[in-house]
């Protein structure tokens, strides 16, 4: 590829690699603007909102310079790379929000050191499940009627079934540890 022909490609890669920074910047703004909304939902909104400046920058700096026969592939490439980086960002945020390992590290950091008994009192099943039920209601994945929970949305259910399938493929048990 000649130097001139490779410029749009290199500019596209530069724009795409900036995606996590752009998403984080938009997330900074939205997290303050929508304090009462579900935190996971705000992260998804930040990803969706960031797609707009990313699309504009990709088009103006790179995509419009591709030869007509290569434009479609370049757009597909852009969508796939942005989608993957956005997915990774969401899971990074979600880890900070809901991962038990991060919470355990945080509790030990706060206390200096913790005994096994202290963990059990800090982190009871009731609390863990209550927090998750609240999040699932906020995300409309569960609904509640008369004290009973029912499936409200299919997205996380589908994700759970994919996870089970993937665990089988990797030879892992199908219940968590």
């Amino acid at each position, binding site marked *: 590829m000649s130097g001139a022909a490779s410029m749009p490609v290199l500019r596209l890669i530069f724009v795409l690699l900036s995606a996590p920074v752009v998403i984080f910047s938009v997330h*900074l703004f939205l997290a303050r603007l929508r304090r009462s909304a579900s935190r996971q939902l705000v992260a998804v909104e930040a990803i969706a909102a960031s797609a707009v400046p990313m699309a504009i920058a990709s088009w103006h700096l790179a995509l419009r310079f591709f030869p007509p026969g290569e434009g479609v592939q370049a757009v597909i490439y852009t969508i796939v790379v942005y989608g993957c980086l956005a997915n990774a960002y969401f899971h990074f945020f979600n880890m900070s929000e809901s991962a038990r390992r991060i919470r355990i*590290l945080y509790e030990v*950091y706060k206390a200096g050191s913790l005994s096994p008994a202290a963990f059990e009192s800090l982190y009871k099943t009731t609390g863990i499940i209550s927090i998750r039920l609240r999040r699932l209601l906020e995300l409309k994945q569960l609904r509640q009627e008369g004290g009973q929970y029912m499936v409200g949305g299919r997205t996380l259910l589908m994700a759970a079934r994919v996870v089970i399938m993937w665990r089988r493929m990797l030879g892992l048990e199908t219940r968590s540890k």
Partner: protein
Amino acid sequence: MNHGVILSGFLMFFACVVLHVFIWRVRLSMISSLILVAIFIFIPSAVLLSIIFVAGVFPGFRDVLPDPVVLVEVLVLHISLSLAYIANYPAVRAISPSLEVMLFVWSSPGGKMTQPEIEKKFSDTTLVNARVDDLMIYRLLIAREGRYELTGFGRLIILGFIGYRKMLGLPAGEG
């Protein structure tokens, strides 16, 4: 950009997935996340960067080796797919309680469950102890005189997460 870039990026990623499934089926490593990073990030990056280096240093090889710019495109696509895969892996390795709750409710008779019924499916020890064991395997936590303490690396990781959430104006996560 030609079809070959997208095809090569996906093929490279799927080759790594096959290698991942093969290694996990033979023997699941205790430090599985680090091995995953090696399979998906370090090894493919080292191979492609070596080819780019050889093409740059030895002009004689340029005719037989792929264009370095094309290799960079393939590598960026592969790394993006891999980052998404690695970011999703913790949910596969230790099914998240949220996903388990969804499955329990969905598969329950009548598709309905109360909170106590859901809680009965979990136990305090499995929800916390397995994660504490993970943190010790990864040398983020150590046990000293019957108490758990952070290692230097563990402290660095948690300070990173605290800083990240402070920038977002959020308190520490609830786990």
